[in-house]
C-alpha cells in the first residue's frame, strides 16, 4: 500500500502548483497568508499531486484555507473538520489528508473530537492557526485568549484561563506535536512536511496572529523577537516528559519546532482496518447472497 512519504509521481511540484487563483478574504498582514504558503511548500516537497490531497477545514477565517490551494478541499461546518477528515481517510487511505482550522474550531466548538482522533492515531495532519481571538465574527474571546484579555465579549476582561493546545494534545497521548509561526517560514514549512511524513496523527499549532483584533505582542514582528527554536536549544523530541514540561510554557514562551515525536508510535487506525479486512476477507459471502445470513439456523 502507498504511504504518504512515497511520491507516486516522478514529476516535481513547485509550491505554486498548489496555490489557487482565489483571492483570500483575509486582512492584509494576516498570519494565515504565511500558513498557506508554508503548506504549499510542504506539499511540493512531499511531491504528491494536488488531486491526491484532501484538505479539510471547519469554519473561521483560517478555515477558508483549502480554497486557496489547488487540492481537493472541503470547507465543512464549525468544529467538525476532524470527524469528516477521518471518514475521508478511512474511505480512501491512499489520500494525503490535511486538516486545518482556528483555535475556536479546534479547541472550543470542536474540542471534543481532538481526544478521539489522537487515541485512534488517525493518519492525518492537523494544523491549528492559533490567534487567540475570534476574527471572523470580529473580535470575541477565544479558547486560547489570555485571562484578563479585553475583547468584544469580555469588555471588562476574560474571567477564564486559556486552553493550552500543546498540553491538551500531549495529555491525550498525541505522537507528533509541533509549534510553528509564519515568522519563521522555512521552519513552518518544514514542520508541516514532517507532520505529513509522520505515520499517524500529527498536530501542529501555528501562532498565526490576527492583524485586526490581535494584540501588538502577538504580531509577527514581536514574535520574531520571542521565538525560541527548540532545535537551537537542544530539545530532544523523543523525550515525552521534557516535551510535556515545555508544553506547559505555552503562553509564556514561544517555542517553535517539533516538541514531541514518539519514536515508537502506536499503529494507526487505518493499519488496523487493513489487517482486519485482510483477515476477514475470505468469510465474505457474495453481496447478492448476504440475506443467507437470515436463513434460520444459519
Amino acid at each position, binding site marked *: 500500500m502507498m504511504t504518504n512519504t512515497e511520491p507516486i509521481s516522478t514529476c516535481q511540484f513547485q509550491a505554486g502548483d498548489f496555490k489557487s487563483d482565489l483571492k483570500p478574504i483575509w486582512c492584509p498582514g494576516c498570519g494565515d497568508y504565511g500558513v498557506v504558503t508554508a503548506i504549499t511548500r510542504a506539499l511540493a516537497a512531499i511531491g504528491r499531486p494536488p*488531486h491526491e490531497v484532501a484538505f479539510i477545514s471547519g469554519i473561521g477565517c483560517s478555515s477558508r484555507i483549502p480554497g486557496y490551494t489547488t*487540492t481537493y478541499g472541503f470547507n465543512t461546518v464549525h468544529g467538525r473538520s476532524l470527524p469528516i477528515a477521518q*471518514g475521508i481517510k478511512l*474511505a*480512501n487511505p491512499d489520500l494525503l489528508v490535511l486538516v486545518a482550522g482556528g483555535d475556536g474550531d479546534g479547541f472550543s466548538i470542536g474540542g471534543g473530537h481532538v481526544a478521539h482522533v489522537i487515541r485512534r492515531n488517525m493518519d492525518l495532519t492537523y494544523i491549528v492557526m492559533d490567534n487567540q481571538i475570534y476574527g471572523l465574527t470580529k473580535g470575541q474571546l477565544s479558547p486560547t485568549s489570555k485571562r484578563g484579555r479585553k475583547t468584544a465579549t469580555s469588555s471588562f476582561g476574560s474571567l477564564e484561563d486559556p486552553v493550552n493546545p500543546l498540553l491538551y494534545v500531549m495529555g491525550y497521548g498525541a505522537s507528533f506535536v509541533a509549534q510553528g509561526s509564519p515568522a519563521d517560514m522555512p521552519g513552518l514549512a518544514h514542520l508541516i512536511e514532517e507532520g505529513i511524513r509522520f505515520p499517524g496523527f500529527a498536530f501542529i499549532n501555528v501562532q498565526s496572529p490576527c492583524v485586526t483584533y490581535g494584540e501588538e505582542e502577538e504580531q509577527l514582528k514581536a514574535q520574531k523577537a520571542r521565538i525560541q527554536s527548540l532545535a537551537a536549544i537542544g530539545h530532544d523530541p523523543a523525550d515525552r516528559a521534557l516535551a510535556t514540561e515545555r508544553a506547559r510554557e505555552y503562553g509564556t514562551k514561544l517555542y517553535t519546532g517539533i516538541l514531541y515525536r514518539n519514536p515508537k508510535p502506536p499503529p494507526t487506525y487505518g493499519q488496523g482496518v487493513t489487517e482486519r*479486512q485482510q483477515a476477514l476477507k475470505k468469510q465474505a459471502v457474495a453481496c447478492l447472497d448476504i*440475506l443467507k445470513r437470515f*436463513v*434460520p439456523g444459519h
Partner: protein
Amino acid sequence: MIIGIAGAGGDGVISAGESIITAAALEGCHGIMTKSFGSQIRGGEASCRLRLATRQVLTPNGPLDVAVALDWEDFRRFGGELPVESSTIMIYESNTGVAPDKLPLDGVAPAEVFSVPITDMALKHAGTDKAKNIVVTGLLAGWFGIGRESMLAGIRKKFARKGAEVVEGNARAFQAGLEFAEAHPLRENRKLLAPQAGRQANLLTDGNDMCAAAAIFAGCTFFSGYPITPSTEIMQFFDREIWKYGGSLLQAEDEIAGIGAVVGASFAGKKAMTATSGPGMSLKTEMLGLASIAELPLVCVNVQRGGPSTGMPTKAEQADLFQAAFSSHGDCPRPVLAPISVGDMFGITVEAFNLAEYYQTPVIILSDQEISQRKETVEPIDTSAFKLIERRRPTKAEMVKYARFKLTESGISPISQPGMVGGNYLAAGIEHNELGRPTASGEMHARMNEKRFRKFSPLQNRRDLFLVEGDLDATVALVSWGSVAGVAREALQLARAEGLRVKLLVPKLLYPVAEPVYRDFFASVKRGLFIEQSFQGQLYRLARMYVDFPPGVKTMAKSGSNPIQPAEVLAWLRKENS
C-alpha cells in the same frame, strides 16, 4: 394465532418465542415476534408477543389467542401490550398458587384456563428450572401444532455445546410439555394450519439487521455512528460484516462525529451510512444541511422511538416525520423513506442508497422501534431483481474546467472525488457558484437553491413507492405509513371480507410529498382516516401542506406505546360505511 408469554427476566421467555418463530420459519410458515422488557438492564420482567400464520403476517397487534404467565405480577405489568379477552386460552404456572377461577384479569374470563406445574416439570425432566421455557415450547407445540420436529431439532442444536446430558434433559422437558398438552386436550381445536408440503424455509430477521444487510448489498462500505436504542443493532451488524467486504466502521465519539465521518466518506467517493434514533437525529441536523448544500450522497437511518428528548427509548412512535422532512436550517430538501415491514426494509434501504447516489443528497430512512427490533419471517428475496445506482461521475471532457455544481437541466451535476485527476474542487457548506467557489451573490444563491429543489422533481411520479390497496373507486379511505401500515392493511382486509368498500394508501416516500399520487388517490374519497402513531398525526399535517384533502379526511393519531389495533380501524370503517 397470537401468543403472548410473560415472566421474569431470567425465565427465558424471549428465547422460547425465538424457538417457536424459528421453527415456523423453517417450515415455511410466517410470523412476527415482538419483545418487551421492563426498564432494567438485567432482570425485571420480560415478554414476547408472537403472531403466527401460514400467510404473511401484517401486524403483531391484536388480542391474544394464547397467553402464558410464568408469574402473574410480571404478566400484569405488560397490561395493554398483552390483552387477554374472552376468546383467549390462558396458560399459567401452577406454583403461583392462583386458583383457575380467581385469575387476576380484571373480570375477564378466558375461553379456557390451564394451570400447569411448569417449574416442577422442568425440575423433574431436565433437573433445572432453567428449562421452564422449554416446557412452555412443548406445551405450545402440543396444543397448537407448531412444528415440533423443527423445535426439537432447534433444542438439540442450541444445547449441543453443553453436552449430551443437557441436550437430553431439555429434550425430555420439551416432550413433557407435549405430553401434558396431549393429556389435556383443548375443548376446541385451535391448531395452526399445517403449511403446504414442499414450501421452502422463510428468512427470519429483524428490521435493524435487514437494514444493515441491505446496505451492504447496495454497496455501502462505510458506517459510522454512536450507540443508541433502538438502532444500535444496525452498527453491530456492520461491525460483524463490513470488514469482509473491504469496508470499515468507526464508532464515533458522538452523534455529530458519526454523521460527519459519513459525510467525509461520501466526499471521498464511497457509499456510506449512519443510524440513530431521535436524540441522535437532533444532533445530526447541521450535518444534514452540509450534505444538502455540498450535494453529497448519504443514508441516515432514524429508528424512531417515543419523544421528545429521552422520551420512551424502547417504544415505537412515528413522531419524527416533521424533523426528518424539515430539520436543519435553510431551504434544505431531502427524501424521506419509511419501510412498512422487516421484509420491506430491504427494498427501502436499497432505494435509499439509489436515491442518495442519483440525486447526490442525504436520504433519511424513518424506521421505528417495532420494525427495527421485531423478528419477522421474510419470503426469500430475489436480490438479482434490484438495480444499484451509482453517482453521476464526470466524463473526461467535463474534467476540463470542471464545474462541480454545474446548473444542468436535471439539476444533477457531475460529481468527482479526491484522487480523480482534473476533478479537484472545493466542497463547502458555504454557498458556491458552479465551480464550487464561495459566493455572496444573492442571485447565485437563488439559482443554487432552485437547482437543489428541482433535481427532486422526478420523485413526484414515483408511484412505485406507494402502495394502493382495496377498491380503487371507494369513497372511504385509509392512509398509513411505517409499522402502523400493517395495522391498516389488516383492517382493510377484514373490512373487505365483510363486504365494505374501502381503499388504502401507504406512502413509503414520505417527503417530498408526491402531490399527484395523493390527488389521484383522494379523487374518489369523501371520508378518510390517516392512522398514525403520534400525537399530532404528522403525515396528515405534512401532506396537507401540499395537497388539499376532502373535508371528511381526518386522523386517528395516538402517542407511541399504545398500539393501534386493527379492530379500532375496522370499527371506524363500519361506522363510515353504515
